Structures are given as structure tokens and as C-alpha cells.
């Protein structure tokens, strides 16, 4: 494995990373900065923006708790009241009609959870009987039970949980994080997405860089075959052929370089070819799971057909962050979108993810990686306390749960509450902006200072809101 190498940049015009002070001076935000920008013109801000396409590692705003992030994204939206937040009142009022409006219309009466619950760990956190392996780790987790977001519909909601806005085309959290911090390993992308094997609902905008330079967009890794697009050579082209091509290019670029001795972009582009050449080896290496022991495979459940897919992705996620990737998002397969038969749907998804998620936490802990890796688990919204089509539940953005574990997280805590039936967040409400502010904070980034000037205004991941949830931090 190549070590992170600060002298080899894949891209960008900056020959050396900006110092933290430079960066703050040039791209800080806040009223003072805006006033200054309007006094000085936008040139400084813009210059900084244009310089910053590089993935070279950069210092955070303040000492970071987390170096990297693994976001276990439960696409389709698991139900909080059926997983981690049982509501006795809901059981009591099972069958009662309400005036709750549902996304797809056709609201049924209140429905108790089909699952049974037990308390786990020192903290006594409730977990359903389908997630007993994950349950063993509750003392590492902080449960945020009072999340809310804006859209009732999957795709805008997925956009929002990723980018802060329920609309496509805005930079996602992983893009902001790599924009702010760069990445530790220049031979791999800084932001990797292990996608839903069934395809991407909402497309690549879920991990897009929006108006940020495309160097910060997530790179989709496949868990089988060549992990990245264009990573594999064409048939009939050997590594030797390609090496010869690169050498030829270096020589033929000479004439042009002589005319432009000072233009760093041309040298960078030549470097980018060398990097691409190295990436072919390194990326293939990082996804080569045959290097892992049988015990490790068992730990992640890759030996079990039900959990193989998600286990493989979780194992790959660990290998990626171990190799210096900044931000990894791991999509569940299919959808937790239980409109008809929640028990059946959630049982299926619990079986697919319970062992892998638990295995990942165990493995990260054993390897000492959990100390500087933040793990997030959750969907794009939650589900209704009322039933739909008999045994299902409709979408619910009014109150749902996420948990975080690892770097900087106070284990065994719980923050916020929904109402007694789990319909709406009522106590210590947490917006998506708040989640993002907390995520960036753990990475050592101040969400109000991480800005990018675009179409006439400075944008942030948290728009104009967001508060760090200090109560869950260690």
C-alpha cells in the first residue's frame, strides 16, 4: 500500500495546501467576512474557491474527533417505533383511528409494533428482537430520536439527508467533508459510495458535489468486479502497454511544457495520469477481500447468503477508511419501504444488516479504528405510527431516529423524543441541518465557516441553520 503522499497531488493548482489560517482568511464566512468581501470584491473568495479542487489533506478548523466517516444508510426508511424506540402508548391505542394524513393517502388506524423489545447494555436502550447483534453495541451509540425533515417523498428526502435540501443538485455531506479536509490517500477517491445493488433511486445526485468541484463528488464503488468506472484496462491492453503510453505522453508533452514553463495545471494533468495508473492497482487491491481472514468474513456475515451483500460492503468500508478514505457511505440493498407488510419487510432487512453492522462495530473497535471513525446509521425519514394496507406503514418525516457511534460520540446516550405514539418529534427536535452540523463538528469543521461561493451567494451544507448536538458528544 502506498502511504499518503503530500507531494503528489492528483489535481488542483495549489502546489502546497493552504494553511488553516490562510484558508480561514480567504474563505471564512460570517457577517464580517461578507462585509469584507463586499469591500474587497469577491476576488479573494473566488480565488480560494478556484484553488480548492485538490484532495490534498487539509487541517480542520479545530482538532477533530473523527478522521473518517462510515454512514450506514438504510434506504427506504426503517421505522423507529419498530426498531429502537418502542411506544407503549401505541400498543395501548392499537386500532384507534386518528386524523394523521399519510403521503399516499388511505390512512389506517394506529398500529402497534409487530416486534417484541428488550433492553440492552448499561444504558438500557430498547432494541427490537430482529436486531439482537446490533443491540450488543448500544453502549457505543448515541440515539437521536427526534429527527425531522421536510419531504414525505423518498427521493427529495434522500437528497435532503445527504445535502440538506430536498432538491437535487446541491453538494452532499461527503462532498463538503472532502472539500473541507481533502483525503489522506491520494491514490483512492476521498469519498466513496457503496451503493444499493438494486440501483440508485434519485441517481448519482445522492452523492454529487453539486456546484463544488467534481473532485469532491462521491465515487460509486461496486462490490463485485472492477470497483470503479474505467478502472479496468481495455482488453488487449496490458500494464506494459499503458506504461509505454504514459512514457510517450510525458515526452510529447515536453514541447508544450517548454512553451508554458510556469503553468502548474499542465504538470498537474500529467501527474493525474500517473495517479490514474497507480489507482488501478490500489483500488483493485482495496476491494480484494480475499486478503481478509475467514474469521473476519464470518464476523461480517459474508458467509451467509442473507447478509452477504451488506456484509461485503461493510467490510469494504472498513478497508477503505483503513486506507485513508475520508467518507464512505454504505447503502442498504432494496428498500426498508414497508408500505404493506412491515414485519416481513423489516425482518428481511434486519437479517441483511444486523450481523454486518454489528460485525463492523466489533471490527472497528478491535482494530482501534472506532476511536477516529464516526459511524452513522439511519434512513431518509421514518415511518408512521398508523397502519397502511393492513400491516404496513407510510412515510413519516415528522419524527424519526438516527444513531451515531464511535469517534467523539458519548456512548449509551439518547437525545430528543417523539410524542407518545412516535408521530412527531416534540422534545429537542433535531433537523437535518443539526445532524450535518454535528457531523462536520466531529470532523473538526465549523459548519458556519465551511462555505462555497456560487451564483451570488456563499453556500453551506447547513444553509442558514444547524446547531451542533453537544449533548451526544463525548
Amino acid at each position: 500500500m502506498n502511504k499518503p503522499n503530500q507531494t503528489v497531488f492528483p489535481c488542483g493548482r495549489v502546489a502546497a495546501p493552504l494553511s488553516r489560517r490562510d484558508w480561514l482568511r480567504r474563505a471564512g464566512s460570517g457577517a464580517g467576512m461578507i462585509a469584507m468581501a463586499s469591500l474587497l470584491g469577491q476576488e479573494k473568495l473566488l480565488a480560494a474557491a478556484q484553488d480548492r479542487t485538490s484532495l490534498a489533506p487539509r487541517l480542520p478548523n479545530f482538532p477533530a474527533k473523527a478522521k473518517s466517516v462510515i454512514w450506514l444508510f438504510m434506504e427506504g426508511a426503517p421505522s423507529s417505533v419498530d426498531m429502537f424506540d418502542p411506544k407503549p402508548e401505541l400498543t395501548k391505542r392499537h386500532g384507534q383511528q386518528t386524523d394523521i394524513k399519510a403521503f399516499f393517502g388511505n390512512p389506517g388506524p394506529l398500529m402497534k409494533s409487530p416486534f417484541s423489545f428488550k433492553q440492552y447494555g448499561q444504558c438500557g436502550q430498547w432494541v427490537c428482537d430482529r436486531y439482537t447483534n446490533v443491540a450488543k453495541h448500544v453502549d457505543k451509540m448515541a440515539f437521536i430520536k427526534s429527527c425531522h425533515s421536510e419531504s414525505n417523498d423518498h427521493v427529495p428526502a434522500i437528497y435532503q439527508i445527504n445535502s440538506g435540501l430536498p432538491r437535487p443538485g446541491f453538494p452532499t455531506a461527503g462532498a463538503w467533508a472532502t472539500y473541507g479536509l481533502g483525503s489522506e490517500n491520494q491514490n483512492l477517491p476521498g469519498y466513496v459510495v457503496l451503493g444499493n445493488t438494486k440501483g440508485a433511486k434519485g441517481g448519482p445526485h445522492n452523492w454529487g458535489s453539486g456546484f463544488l468541484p467534481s473532485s469532491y463528488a462521491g465515487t460509486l464503488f461496486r462490490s463485485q468486479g472492477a470497483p470503479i468506472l474505467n478502472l479496468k484496462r481495455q482488453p488487449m491492453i496490458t500494464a506494459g502497454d499503458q506504461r509505454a503510453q504514459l512514457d510517450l505522453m510525458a515526452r510529447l508533452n515536453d514541447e508544450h511544457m517548454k512553451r508554458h514553463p510556469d503553468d502548474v495545471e499542465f504538470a498537474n494533468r500529467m501527474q493525474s495520469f500517473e495517479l490514474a495508473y497507480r489507482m488501478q492497482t490500489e483500488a483493485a487491491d482495496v476491494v480484494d477481500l480475499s486478503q481478509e481472514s475467514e474469521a473476519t468474513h464470518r464476523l461480517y456475515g459474508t458467509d451467509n447468503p442473507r447478509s452477504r451483500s451488506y456484509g461485503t460492503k461493510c467490510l469494504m468500508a472498513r478497508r477503505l477508511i483503513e486506507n485513508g478514505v475520508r467518507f464512505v457511505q454504505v447503502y442498504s440493498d432494496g428498500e426498508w419501504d414497508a408500505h404493506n407488510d412491515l414485519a416481513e419487510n423489516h425482518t428481511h432487512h434486519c437479517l441483511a444488516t444486523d450481523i454486518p453492522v454489528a460485525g463492523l462495530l466489533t471490527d472497528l473497535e478491535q482494530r482501534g479504528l472506532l476511536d477516529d471513525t464516526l459511524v452513522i446509521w439511519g434512513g431518509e425519514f421514518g415511518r408512521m405510527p398508523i397502519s397502511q394496507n393492513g400491516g404496513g406503514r407510510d412515510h413519516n418525516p415528522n419524527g424519526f431516529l438516527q444513531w451515531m457511534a464511535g469517534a467523539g460520540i458519548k456512548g449509551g446516550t439518547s437525545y430528543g423524543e417523539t410524542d407518545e405514539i412516535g408521530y412527531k418529534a416534540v422534545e429537542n427536535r433535531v433537523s437535518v441541518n443539526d445532524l450535518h452540523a454535528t457531523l462536520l463538528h466531529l470532523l473538526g469543521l465549523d459548519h458556519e465557516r465551511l462555505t462555497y461561493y456560487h451564483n451570488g451567494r456563499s453556500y453551506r451544507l447547513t444553509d442558514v441553520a444547524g446547531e451542533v448536538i453537544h449533548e451526544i458528544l463525548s
Partner: protein
Amino acid sequence: MYSLTLIAACNILLVSTSLFAQNGPTKIEQVDFVEDIQPVFRQHCYECHAGNTEKAELNLAIRAKAMKGGKSSVAIVPGDSHASLLVERVTEVDVDKRMPPEGKEPLSSKEIGLFRAWIDQGAKWPDGNDVADPRLDRAREHWSFQRLRDVPLPEKLATDTWSKTAIDLFASAQLHESGIGPSEPASARILVRRIYFDLAGLPPTPEQTRQFVIEHAIDPATATSSLVANLLDSNQYGERWARHWLDVARYADSAGQEADQDRPHAWRYRDFVIKALNEDMPYDEFVRWQLAGDEYEPENDQAISATGFLTSGTSFKLNDNFIESERLLNRYNELDDIVSTVGTGLLGITTGCARCHDHKYDAFSAREYYQLVRVFHSGDRTTGKLPSGSDGFFFKDFDAEPRTTWLFRRSDFYDREIEVELGFPALVSFDRTADDYWNDARSKVEEPTSTLQRRAFAEWITDVEHGAGALLARVIVNRVWQHHFGHGIVRTPADLGVRGEAPSHPELLEYLVGDFVKHGWKLKRLHRKILSSSVWQQGSSNPAATLAARVDPQNRLLWKMAPQRLEAEALRDAMLAVSGTLNFKAGGPGFKPYIQPEANLARNIQGEAYPQDAKDDASTRRRSVYMFHKRLIPYPLFQAFDRPDLMNSCSQRQNTTVAPQAMAILNDTFVRAVSRDFAKRLTESGDDRSAIQNAFAAAFAREPTETELTTSLAFIELQANSRTKRNEEGARHEAMADFCQSLFGLNEFIYVD
């Protein structure tokens, strides 16, 4: 350095005079409120003490309120500065009490002296100088919101043998001031490649290069102007420049969002843009049609298709049984997309904050934002028949009845207390109201089938005298400049507002805008003016210019031409062109190229799925502007090379240099296939030596040097041998393909000098 010293000296002078001032007002002549006092208020106080923001209940923008004072006490006691709290607070030693508050620049001694003198002289505040709205007041002063003004040409210096055109005179004047000289003119071979890519988005063929080089040797000016004229007349011009505009218009061929349904007729808008540019449609008319073509010429396919500008944003039709709040959110997001595209795309104004509230730095208030929403609120995108009977995709009002539009405070679309009338942003309105425009529009159309609000808006936005026309012209002239030079005269092309960057050449911009408007808003005239200038024809490398590189590393003064990276589309088109396989078929439905399964994986797409097995043949080797852009399945080669995602208006593409670009050149199936075709074409023409010469002529518009030739020959030989050793069929041809593919990765191929 000199200027810095000068400024320092001036500061000392200022300080010393203000010391006198503090000794007593007698040293200062009669103070004038408008000249001396209000500018200080405006700069230091209005952010908190004016308009809706009256911190400590103090308003210093309206005489009656200012004289009344704030929460603490009377701020201004006419005739007695010692008793005036205003003076006390600005001179306060305790930073916690001093105004302006900590973090802001304190008033200078001179300003304080002026305050004192003004109050002691009776605090005279002449009538008609109240500022009700500081945001508007500030914007009113801003350069881009002013009416057009005549700009005299700078005088040509006796020593100036370089300037050929008016543009050069302006540039030269600023260069001269900084003591920097321009660069040598680009050579004929550099120039011909630059002109072709700039205007046609394609490289010149070896024959075209040869011809230009001959003509250039005889008379460079004529050779250049006739080539420019030819290219402006060619269909390739519209195909090239339409792409720039389609970025602004966030044009794509599918709806985006979850379902990402194809829009099989959206291409009619794309073709309208190409045609309009090729016909040199006046830009003001181009804009009017895009906003309200149907309200001007309801029987004209082109005019109606032009409204594709309004329909190109993303959309998703939610079923009627879906929850109402979601449908409203959706609808108002779609209207926001239109308003913000009109704002940044046409006017260079951000509407970002106004959707939720009045923002002190925004040009538009929240009310004005919702007034813009109102313009488009009575219609929606429609798939239907064009007048000719063809299928179209355009914007259409529901009927002639304007729909009620509310000012949603904090964008709460259940807040329906405040209805808004038709109205246009005040700061670019001069002595004519929205109703004037609207009445005018209504007087011209008998039995309208639409509300004609868009037509009224279109008239206002192109009205140089009374509306936003001057701003509209400044924005487009700056965009055109940007595409010729890589950067605009204003480097924030989507923001010419108070937070945007100041122009590097304000007089030049104003001159060009004036000329543009005076001569009928013709883009081709503007292109000709720019391309015939010495500034544009400079060489792109000037290693000797060490002073320039130090004083102006960003080349803002235009002392050389900056090399530009080809956009994704131009890169693909150039590969196809040199390989001789570019299909010039123009117009009509977009083609769908092959996309690898790894990248063709959006789920839940409704309607027609993107083909899994698209062929790489002539039908998919058309120019990139005709490629079908499926929003959720972007073409990987384009994505790698910074093509915008077309979800929002894009005024300036990113320019990254990243490994995935290199991986695409090295490993992409399409790139390899085109390399083979290029190789085939070359080997048909003769031996390896002439093949290499032809390759350089096609790709770089020049001959290889002797070293390059030997290096290339050796490479091909080596590759042929190693492939032969591997018992490969067609080893020589593959070796030549290896060579061609390498050329595609060279800086000289990817950049235009």
C-alpha cells in the same frame, strides 16, 4: 509599490487634517449633509439603523426618526455636538459601547470631525434625503444597476503600436498604468486552432490550417477576419455557442427527480437556441421569446419552443392523492427554479435569500421575489402540439386569468395573508410600472389566451430606458467575453449585484455593452469585435513577462491569453473530428450513446428506460450538443470532465484536473474505439512517418518536431513488436491506436493555447 506609498502618504495627510478638525469646527467649512454626512451614515450605520432594522429603536436614515433618537436618548442635538449621543457613541473609548460595534471599522477622526461640525452647525438635513429602504438605496448606487452611459474611447498613446481596436485601447490603457506590456501575437497555427475551437468547438482540419497559414502570411488581419466571418456563418457556430447557453438554461432531456421521465420533445428548445444563434437573432428578442414567445407569436413553432427556457428545470408530477403539502412544496420549488434561473441566468442577480425573507445584501426583496413568482404562477410546462402540428414541450398559461400569488413569509406556503400584485424589481425600474407594461401588452393582443404577464415582464427585462435592459445586456456581454477569454470582465458571471466581483475593465465593459445595444443586440458583431482585437490574438505563453506574472498573476489585465481546457463536449467532438468519424447531422431528437452498466443504474425511472445496449456507430457519433442528457444517468466521460449536472443554472463550469479524467482517456471503451478509427485513417494515408505527421496536423495544427517524430516512431515500433510477440492480430494497427490514444491525453490536445 508607488501607489501604495502614495496611499500611505495620503493617510498621513488625512490624519493630520483631522487632528485639526478635532480642535474645533472652525477649521471645517460649512458641512453638507448629502455630500459629507449621509455617505458616512450609509457606509457605517445603515446596516443596523435604517429600514426595517432599527437597532435600539434608532433610525439614522429618516430625518424625523433620526432627530427623535433611539431607546437611549436623543441622538442628535442640533447645535450641540457635546450633548449629542451620536458623537459620544462613535468616540467612545470602551469598545463594548463604541459604535460601530466591535468587529466593524471605527469611524475615522475626519468622519467624527465632520459629525461634530455638522451638528454644531445645526444638523441641517435638507428635504428629500430620507432613505426609506437602505437596501434599495445601496443598490441604486451600484454600477450594474445604472442606465447605460456613454464611454469615451481612451486616447491612443503615441508609443502604442499594438492597439488595433477599441477593445485594445481600453486594455492597453490599464496595462500601461501598471507598467505591463502585452504579449506577442499568437502564431498563425496557434491562432487558427484557437479560432476554430472558440467559434466552432472543433479543431481545424490540416487543410484548413494550411490555408489559413498561407493567408495569414500575406495579411494576418484579413485572414483572421475572413475566417471568423466564415465560421460565424457556419452551422457549427450555433452548435458551439448553444452549449454555453444551454448550461445557463439548465437544459436536459429528462425531468430529473425520482422518475426522471424522458422529455422526448425537449430538443425543440435546444434547436431553437442553435437556430437563433446561427441567425443572429437579436439577444433582446431571444430573451423575450424564451420568456413569452407564445404571447408574442402564438402561431410560430420557434417562438413557442423558445419557452423551453422556462420548462427545462427538473420536475416530478406527484399524483393528486399524494399529501397536499408535498405537492405544494414541489410546485413552489419548480417556480423557484424558474425565478432563480431568470435571476442568475438573465440578470446576474441571486434570489437565494429573498424566497424566505428580505436580505440586506439581496437586490430583490421578498415581495419582489414573489412578484416574480407571480409572473409564472399562472402557467406550467406542457407537452402538446405546436402550431405546425408537431409535438412540442413548452410553457403555457392555464388561461387568461392570473392566479393569486402570496408572499410566503419564511417560504411557508400555507401563509396566505399577503397577496402580491404584478410588479418588477424596483432597483432596475425607472419611471415605468409593471402595470404600464402589462396594459401595453394587453392592448396589443385581442382575446388573449394567457395572462400576458410574461410578455409584460419580457418587455421590462429588455427595456434599456425604463427596465432591466441595461443589466440584461451587461450580463450577456460579460458571458460572451468569458467564453472567449476563460473569465468574464466580471469574474462572477451569475452575480453582477452588490456582492459580485467588480469588473476588471469597467469602462471597456460599458463601452461594449453600449455598442451591443446600439447596434441591435447582435452577438455576432460582438464576437467579431472581440476576435479582431490584439488582446484576444495575443500568445498564451509569455515566460519573459516576469513583472506581469508577479503584479498580475491572475492575468486580470489581459497581458496574455490564458490557455483554456476544452469542455467535455468539445473534447469528445475533437476526438471524433480528428478520427474522421464525426457525423455532422444537425438538429432533431437527441442520440443516446452507450453507457456502461456501472453508470446506467438509476432505479425507479418511469417511462422509457435508458438503453443498455446502445451502439457506437454513426448515429451516436454526432456532435455532443445533440446528445440526449438523461439527468439521472449522466454520460460518464462528460461527468469526469466537469460537465455541470444541469439541475440548476450554471454560469461557469468547474475546471478540475483529476484522476478519473485520466482513467477515462486511458480505459474508456469509446475513447479506445475512436483511437482505433483515428489510427485507421492515418495508416490509410501512408507509412508511419507520414501517419505521425498527419496525426500532429489534425490534432495540434502543426508539424511534429524531429524529436517528436523519432520518439513517436520508436513508440509505434516498440508497441507493434510487443503486440506481435503476444501473437495479437492487427498488432501494427493496435500499436498505432496506442499512439493515437496517447495523443488524446496530451495537454496540447486537451487545452487550447
